[in-house]
């Protein structure tokens, strides 16, 4: 097992190198770059240098006068030392900006992810157990509504009903007006209160697919021969479902869940924007549109690492839940 993990890690490093190279190339080839915009702005100021002069000067100071290959090597040299440079758009070190925005996104993503699992798996199992019953249809319809709803539309409805009509929540933001005066526990509650609507949006929109997936898998497992054997042993239905069937349903679900690791940190751009939560989704979008190469590079490479790690974790978990794939 250790050998397997080490080999996978080694392969991951190679993949990561090429991913970073591709992202860097694309960032450099984008039609409107950060320096071009800046040069245009500066040139339009009275009494300044011309656009061309500004462009040359800025290119030099931002290190864009080098070719793509040389630029990438330079970035890589710094990156492996843990130095990702300063963000151009936000004028602070990349890691510092990242630290300030990641927490909100992670809490949002993590909470909704946990809720999704807690809701989707039991409901999926229930739907499979009572296939073609009213319960099954109700759950399937609920799942499909969730899958089909665009998050911006659903979030708007939630805001209209719960913020405007009922006034239970603030329309947007992470903290209330009186945040600073609150006790530490009060602060926590205030933040939690502001997270409710975004979390509901994310859960409802995303829960459906996992639910359908669980249902399909459970149905397959329930129709298998070993479940019939378990029943023939005289086991109670509860034990058949919760022990024999559940362990087998876990096999595909675990791989899916392992694969969702990056999404915990990816942020939810639309939801974050709608609720004005300054999370990573919103920030990375800004960085991308302004052509902020250092921040985008950091964010994308970070996502790539998480994706590779997620796959590795999924594979390891796969071996944990399924004895047939264990390597001896």
């Amino acid at each position, binding site marked *: 097992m250790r050998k397997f993990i080490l080999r996978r890690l080694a392969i991951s490093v190679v993949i990561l190198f090429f991913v970073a190279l591709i992202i860097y190339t694309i960032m450099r080839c984008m039609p409107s770059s950060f320096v071009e915009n800046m040069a245009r702005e500066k040139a339009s100021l009275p009494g300044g240098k011309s656009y061309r002069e500004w462009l040359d000067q800025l290119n030099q100071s931002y290190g864009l006068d080098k070719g793509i290959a040389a630029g990438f090597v330079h970035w890589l040299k710094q990156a492996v030392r843990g130095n990702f440079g300063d963000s151009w758009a936000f004028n602070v070190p990349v890691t510092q900006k990242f630290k300030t925005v990641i927490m909100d996104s992670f809490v949002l993503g993590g909470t909704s992810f946990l809720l999704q699992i807690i809701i989707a798996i039991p409901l999926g199992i229930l739907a499979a157990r009572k296939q073609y019953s009213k319960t099954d249809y109700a759950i399937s319809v609920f799942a499909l509504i969730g899958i089909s709803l665009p998050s911006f539309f659903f979030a708007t409805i939630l805001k209209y009903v719960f913020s405007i009509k009922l006034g239970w929540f603030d329309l947007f933001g992470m903290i209330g007006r009186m945040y600073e005066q609150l006790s530490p526990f009060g602060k926590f509650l205030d933040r939690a209160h502001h997270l409710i609507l975004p979390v509901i949006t994310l859960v409802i929109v995303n829960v459906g697919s996992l639910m359908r997936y669980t249902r399909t898998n459970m149905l397959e497992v329930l129709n*298998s*021969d*070993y479940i*019939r*054997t*378990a*029943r*023939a*042993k*005289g*086991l*109670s*239905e509860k034990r058949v479902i919760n022990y*024999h069937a559940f*362990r*087998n349903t876990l*096999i595909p679900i675990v791989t899916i869940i392992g694969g969702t690791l990056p999404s915990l940190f990816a942020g939810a751009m639309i939801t974050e924007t709608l609720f004005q939560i300054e999370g990573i989704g919103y920030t990375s979008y800004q960085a991308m549109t302004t052509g902020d190469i250092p921040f985008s590079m950091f964010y994308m490479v970070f996502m790539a690492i998480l994706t590779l790690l997620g796959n590795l974790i999924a594979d390891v978990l796969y071996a944990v*839940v*399924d*004895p*047939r794939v264990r390597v001896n």
Partner: protein
Amino acid sequence: MALLKSKKAKSANYISGKESRRISKENRKTTDQIEKQRNRRNVPRDEYITQMKDQNNVVEFDDLHTYFFTDIGTVKAVDGVSFNIPQGKTVGVVGESGCGKSVTSLSLMQLVQRPQGQIVSGSIRFNTGDEVYDIAKTPTSEMQKLRGNMVSMIFQEPMTSLNPVFRIGVQVDEVIQLHNKQMSKDEVKVRSIEMLELVGIANSEGVYRMYPHELSGGMRQRVMIAMGLACNPKLIIADEPTTALDVTIQAQILELLRNLKDKINSSIMLITHDLGVIAEMADFVVVMYAGRIVERGTADEIFKNPSHPYTIGLMNSKPAVGKKVDRLYSIPGKVPNPIDMPNYCYFYDRCEKRMDVCKTAYPNEIYLTPTHAVSCYLYHEMKGALENGR
């Protein structure tokens, strides 16, 4: 004429969406009613505790009807089956695929796929020694005490019948622990290993810790048998136990089953389409066709004097050593559509000896000897034949 015929043939297998919806609505009504009846809490005991007709039998199937309510119509998988399994004997059930052999045995275990599949009428009396249960009416909670304990089942597919994610030991322990609550963990383990040894697994301690995928098909079937026999059941249902195994293993498994049956003094209901297996194992034979019994009797009677044209056909379609034939015999035609069964003899269309009278009503059972019964008009006029055993 040909045109008319093809139209009719089409209508047998094709129904409109409207019709299908009407049928499934009706089905739901019927199955919901049966399910409601089944799922009542605290069913009074005297509803399912009955008396055996003959105390020497372990199981008495009495006019069992098991139907499947599908969207294209009701499939009468088992349609009025009656036979007995005497204590300590092996009863072989033969018939081609889809004739209701497995559904009969699954009905006895209450493992028919519900809610589509239901026992609609008839009874299955099961003798535990102290009490007699009518399995058709026994609630699931009581049934769970019988399954694996009093009656156990060995399935056709050893490759998929064991749960792939649990060790062999865990799976064997589970059934012993479940029905012997007073046993400690260590006692259970000792018993499991003893059972594995009993079914001829040499490295029983090692196998105890293995996963199913580390074993061959024959070994897995042995584990299934160990699991089935761990609680000394009164009846073992073996549903084509050797079909998926190669010939050398087949003989070993059958030998094993026969020896163990005598050792724990139980009965076997052996389901198979292999007449060789039946000849070797069975004391009594039941021949099924399209959900009904066409002939039953002792093994000697069936093999020496096969009487129903279907049984004769089955015998002829079996390859025999030392008999040279150009081409192996096969019964012409195919089984009638299970949704749209004729009201005359089901075998009429394929029968070589059909007569005009066969087209009238389904033939009654005629007793050729006190143990040998056959449902065929050929014997109705026969001298000395006993109608309904009288």
